[in-house]
């Protein structure tokens, strides 16, 4: 009986010691970090500050009517944005919209489309990770 308890305790301890089964958001960040490390071996982690800069700066390479993320999302990620056709976009910050970034395919789809339209190129894994870090920490 006591042996059984110790065994159970061991299993529970093992489960608790494993990093909390990272949700889809953490899985994405891990994936972007690995890719960033390959691209730049000196890569040392994502930065919410760089993500904030990326979100708010204007780019010249993309479409003229969408020079920045804020062109549609607005400048405050905690507030709703609006598409050019008038439809509301839920706030991008996880603190405001907790259901964000739980579907990796959806995240990648929008990075693909929007980076192309705003920056005129694909975003790098570091840029994606920085931006996602900003949105999750905000």
């Amino acid at each position, binding site marked *: 009986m006591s042996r059984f308890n110790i065994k159970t305790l061991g299993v529970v301890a093992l489960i608790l010691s494993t990093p909390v089964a990272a949700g889809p958001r953490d899985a994405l960040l891990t994936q972007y970090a690995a890719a960033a490390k390959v691209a730049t071996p000196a890569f040392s982690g994502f930065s919410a500050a760089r993500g904030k800069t990326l979100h708010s700066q204007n780019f010249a390479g993309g479409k003229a009517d969408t020079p920045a993320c804020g062109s549609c999302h607005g400048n405050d990620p905690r507030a709703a944005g609006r598409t050019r056709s008038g439809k509301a976009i839920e706030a991008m910050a996880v603190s405001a919209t907790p259901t964000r970034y739980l579907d990796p395919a959806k995240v990648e789809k929008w990075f693909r*489309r929007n980076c192309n339209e705003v920056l005129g190129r694909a975003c790098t894994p570091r840029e994606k990770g920085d931006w996602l870090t900003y949105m999750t920490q905000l």
Partner: protein
Amino acid sequence: MNLSYRPLLLGISVLAFSAAVLAGGNHYFAPVADPVVLEECGSCHMAYAPSMLPARSWKRMMGDLGKHFGDDASVDTQTAARIERYLVANAADTGGRQYAGKLLRGVAPDNAPLRITELPKWLREHREVSAREWRHKEVRGKANCVACHSEAARGYYDD
């Protein structure tokens, strides 16, 4: 009037009424019911009812999602196939015919319009809306049906 004609007349008027309703006189366009279509076609703009364009228009549109009215709206091939199947099956000249009514009147059979807002019937229905109203900050153009038709997402486009 001979009494025996009465049931016949009643029957005819009921039929005529149903025909008027089925012909789209009530401004009802069944909304998108497929969750994937709703998600993919409803992110940037309202997911427009498939019965608002003919099947040939939807096929043409799905053939060039990378340049969708100037925007990149591309999706993976499997998703694209599912969306196209749904739109084509419920188009104004296929399964959605009863909602489309006279919407395709004046559209040549070899013409595959991409903009609902360029259909002659649409233009006629909206001729009283001024340029200033289209520019209103809550409207922002002709793509935003819901700004004026508050029940559009449920399929109702009454004034």
